[in-house]
């Protein structure tokens, strides 16, 4: 990727990221976030991480953001009319943290390896699905499987929370716990 293309994409990404936080209408914010994610996907592809780029587009832009849209609709979020009063302390702290983050970035960039390391061409097959699969399913198999168990637990938890009570209301907590236990043991088996 030539520096010109990268600068263009990076500018686009930063502008849409600013749009995500600066706009008042939640749906417009969401669309800006989608634009940010898609621009990042294109940057990934330009940096030879083709698979990661496409997965970013499929998973984040194509699926997770649609779920965000659902949440916005279901909660019936309205346009933010004006900023909430009395949050000066919060604003000050977040501004400070933001400045710290920017400072950290600059520090890292100053000490980042440059020249030789950065200019070298990527090895053949770098970023391909083959290489990604080998890394995930051979080198880091255990970590990968444990992560999927973690996700499964989250799914079971969500199902248990969303489960409607079949009959008596008095024992709801107990039944919920039992249901969750049953569901998890079922999945585990």
């Amino acid at each position, binding site marked *: 990727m030539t520096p010109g293309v990268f600068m263009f994409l990076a500018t686009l990404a930063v502008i849409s990221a600013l749009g995500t936080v600066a706009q008042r209408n939640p749906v417009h914010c969401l669309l800006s976030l989608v634009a940010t994610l898609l621009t990042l996907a294109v940057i990934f592809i330009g940096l030879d991480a083709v*698979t990661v780029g*496409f997965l970013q587009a499929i998973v984040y832009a194509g699926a997770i953001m649609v779920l965000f849209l659902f949440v916005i609709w279901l909660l019936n979020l309205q346009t933010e009319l004006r900023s909430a009063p009395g949050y000066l302390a919060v604003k000050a702290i977040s501004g400070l943290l933001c400045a710290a983050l920017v400072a950290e970035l600059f520090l890292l960039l100053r000490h980042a390896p440059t020249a030789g390391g950065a200019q070298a061409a990527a090895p053949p097959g770098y970023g391909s699905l083959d290489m990604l699969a080998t890394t995930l399913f051979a080198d880091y198999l255990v970590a990968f499987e444990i992560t999927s168990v973690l996700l499964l637990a989250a799914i079971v938890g969500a199902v248990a929370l969303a489960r409607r009570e079949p009959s008596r209301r008095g024992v709801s907590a107990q039944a919920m716990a039992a249901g969750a236990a049953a569901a998890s043991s079922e999945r585990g088996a």
Partner: protein
Amino acid sequence: MLIDLLIEAIKAIVVVVMVLNLAGVLLWFERKGSALIQDRIGANRAAITGFGKRMGLPNLGLVNTLIADPLKLFTKEDFVPDGADKFLHALAPFLALFPVIITFAVVPFGDVVQIGSRTITLQAANINAAALYVLATIGIGVYGVALGGWSSNNRWALLGGIRASAQMISYEIGLGLAIIAVVMTYGTLDLQEMCRAQGGVWFGFLPRWGICLQPVAFLMLLVAGMAESKRVPFDLPEGESELVAGYFTEYSGGKQAVFMMTDFAEIVLVAVLITVFFFGGWQVPWLYRDGFHFPGGAHLALPQLLVAILGLVSFMIKTVLFCWLQILIRWTLPRFRYDQLMRLGWKGLVPLGLANIVVTAIVVVLTSGAR
């Protein structure tokens, strides 16, 4: 250098023009086809040249469907409802059409053509991870419909938009699982390589097409693809007997035409994907780069350009056939109920797709003999 760029540009333009034209012709296909199915006459107005009449032919309604109706649509008032999000209302139809059109960039519509010393691949963009690209663009296609419904400030439209996004997200999983099984079978993500792998024959006569290897994935892709295109029997987002016209209730004129065009372009997309994955793409049975090799052992040598043209024609014929199949299904089946739709997606396609992947994986490992 310049001529290379020119070739790429021509390929890209040809693909887009072909898709949009086919989408237009499908409108006529649908009108006359549905008339045929329901024993009606169908579109038969506006014979402005009078040519067919003088020849004693019945009026086929081509002018009516392909010229008069689009003209009417594009000259109508472009109405934006009160309280609508004007920007998104205008953006949504194009947000729906754009991902469908760009998906065709990776579709190989022929093998290679040799002109002089130049080898031209008949594919607009040769991406290694083309199958992932297809999934990505299909995934992004949700936004146009969902935002069209939301920005209209209309309850019917919003309900249609919500239904559309839920349906498309659900069937994307089935679609993805079907494509994963296909990718495992051919061992590549490149659609051109998949088409090449489907050349040759089994037992001396049977073309090595994907349908013989992955019949289950073919059915899944057909069902999930039709659900993605949101047409009967999966037309709940539109549901004209419940939701007026669903997500495009508040659209008129040119923008509505763009939504309609998206539907037809999606039909073409599903047909093209089925052709590429399961019916050899541009492969003609027994045709190789040097000509026909018939099962009996007969050989018919053909010039290289003619082979390429035959491949192109075969690709077109297969695509049109599968478009027709989808129109046939659309005019045959009634609409699903919403719970039936969700049950088919999550309890039908997803487990079936996972089982298909497991079986495919076992067969691939056993036949490759490696590891």
